[in-house]
């Protein structure tokens, strides 16, 4: 008898959980889509995409003359007329989308006094933060996929060459990496929105982190590498060059920006054969050919797990923080 009632109770709770989660998710989606800031980032991303496809098409003939394979992938990686490629554009601008969608997720609720009202409803508190993350993630996925398809469509119409199955698969994997990458920034921004009282503070903090990873991380990495493994004279250079390079690389890979760029360059360029330093002896007997998709994936699989782990790690921190936070005190 008791078993049945607890079973019923569990079912009831599950149903309530589903109800509240879907209500929150729908509300967040509606909020985002009707908000002005979503229109702004949509315009920004669309403009970026169109600019980069224009650059790619102008630089295409040069790119094809040097290597005429995998032309479809070149739409995403070619730059021209000093306009960066879609790949590097998204690596730089993508985080911005995540930041905009997440920077005031929790603290605006707190400041509006709606968090009070929300948590006094019969819902689990984590539904709030999970619903917000899922809604942001869905929008990011939609945006990334539509931009990727837009590039493919325009490129296909302009160059008139059908993509091969492998090229399509590589593009799909590339978009998947991009989604995870931007979701990392969404999680990061949400973490700041849990920690900071004011949305201005959390916005500034997340933008600062973005700039740090995109610009200053590589400088910092080379400074540290040079300090540990100096290459300032011939002897040091002979002894330390490899260690210096590796140290530099490893520090850089802490940055999700570097991790992402390295991974997607490998995916979209089958000619990239290694992501680490390769010695002359390792190259002896190597065939000069493209890597197959499976082999490319093998190279950057750790990058994907790393990115997912970073995203989940950051989200977990904000989750725990949010669950333990006092509701009062606005």
């Amino acid at each position, binding site marked *: 008898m008791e078993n049945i009632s607890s079973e019923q109770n569990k079912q009831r709770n599950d149903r309530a959980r589903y109800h509240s989660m879907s209500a929150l998710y729908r509300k967040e989606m509606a909020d985002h889509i009707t908000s002005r800031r979503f229109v702004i980032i949509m315009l920004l991303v669309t403009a970026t995409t169109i600019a980069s496809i224009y650059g790619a098409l102008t630089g295409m003939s040069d790119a094809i003359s040097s290597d005429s394979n995998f032309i479809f992938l070149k739409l995403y990686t070619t730059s021209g007329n000093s306009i960066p490629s879609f790949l590097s554009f998204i690596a730089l601008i993508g985080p911005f989308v995540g930041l905009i969608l997440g920077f005031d997720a929790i603290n605006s609720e707190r400041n509006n006094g709606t968090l009070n009202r929300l948590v006094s409803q019969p819902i689990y508190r984590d539904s709030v933060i999970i619903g917000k993350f899922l809604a942001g993630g869905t929008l990011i996925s939609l945006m990334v996929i539509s931009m990727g398809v837009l590039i493919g469509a325009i490129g296909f119409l302009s160059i008139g060459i059908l993509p091969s199955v492998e090229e399509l698969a590589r593009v799909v994997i590339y978009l998947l990496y991009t989604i995870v990458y931007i979701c990392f920034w969404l999680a990061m921004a949400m973490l700041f929105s849990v920690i900071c009282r004011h949305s201005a503070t959390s916005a500034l903090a997340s933008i600062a982190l973005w700039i740090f990873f995109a610009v200053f991380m590589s400088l910092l990495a080379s400074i540290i590498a040079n300090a540990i493994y100096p290459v300032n004279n011939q002897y040091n250079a002979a002894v330390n060059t490899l260690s210096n390079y590796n140290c530099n690389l490893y520090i850089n890979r802490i940055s999700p920006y570097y991790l992402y760029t390295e991974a997607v360059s490998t995916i979209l360029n089958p000619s990239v054969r290694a992501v680490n330093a390769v010695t002359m002896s390792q190259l002896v007997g190597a065939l000069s050919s493209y890597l197959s998709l499976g082999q490319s994936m093998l190279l950057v699989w750790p990058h994907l797990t790393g990115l997912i782990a970073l995203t989940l790690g950051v989200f977990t921190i904000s989750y725990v923080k949010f669950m333990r936070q006092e509701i*009062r005190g606005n």
Partner: protein
Amino acid sequence: MGENTMIATRGLTKVYGEKVAVNHLDLSINEGEIFGLLGPNGAGKTTTILMLLGLTEPTLGEATINGIDCTRNSIQVKRITGYLPDNVGFYPDMTGRENLRFTGRLNGLDGKKMESKIDDLLERVGMTYAQHQKTGTYSKGMRQRLGIADVLMKDPKVIIMDEPTLGLDPEGMREFLTLIKQLSVEDGRTVLVSSHQLYQIQQICDRVGIFVSGSLVAAGKIEDLGRQLAKEGHYTLEVAAYPCDDRFLGFIHNMTGVTGIEKEGDKFVVHSSRDLRKEITGFLGTNRYTLLHLRQKGGDLDEIYRCYFEKAGQDEKHEQENKNGKHIFGTKQTKK
């Protein structure tokens, strides 16, 4: 009015670092009753409420609503308990109706049933005219009324309100209090109102509890509290006579049991430990004074409140007594 206990706390305690916010609170509120939780700012009222809703974990003790443990089964508690926070917030970009719809969905409502319920509630709180306005444009009074509708969306057995009358204008206040009264009398819901605004609460509460620095110093019907005070020897007499001269003042001053005299306009307010009325009227009669005004205070909440507060202050040598004293009598104090 039912006799069942709806809200009960046993030894409920919350400690923040060094500060004891709530100190062994034993409270029992019956079904269908309006209970006023009174106390100055920072007395621990909001903390108590948050513990009742399971939003803050008590350090010690337990609280139950309708027999359900508030900490362990907070979801079930929140299904039957509506909470109106002191500064109720709505999503400013959504209309009043959309905000209610969202709350309804969170409570598992949907479709036509929910829409007709929203219609009823908007009608009831008199907000039908503003249902399609964005809540960002609402005034404080409108937000509070929408807040009531929002709380009623889940059809709660218990309604908990934290400083609900703060910042309302007199007209808004009157309507609001009528609404609260209806919730209890017509619907039979249990209402817990926390406030530092005495007069308003006095009008609607069945019982009150007086809360000073984390402890409940008194609880009961307002008349009972007054009687209890008189028994303990706290009398306050207002008296005015003509001519109002030094001889009269001197007489009062020399009476046994007088602890203090204040002059308020042309009246004297005499604090004493016993009933002085007979002697004073006797003196006035024999000395040809004209008695203009004589009133034994003690029946109103303000007085009760002041006395209990003084008592608590004396007990604890509370430093902020004077400061808080001012807060109590302010009727338009805002919290932050």
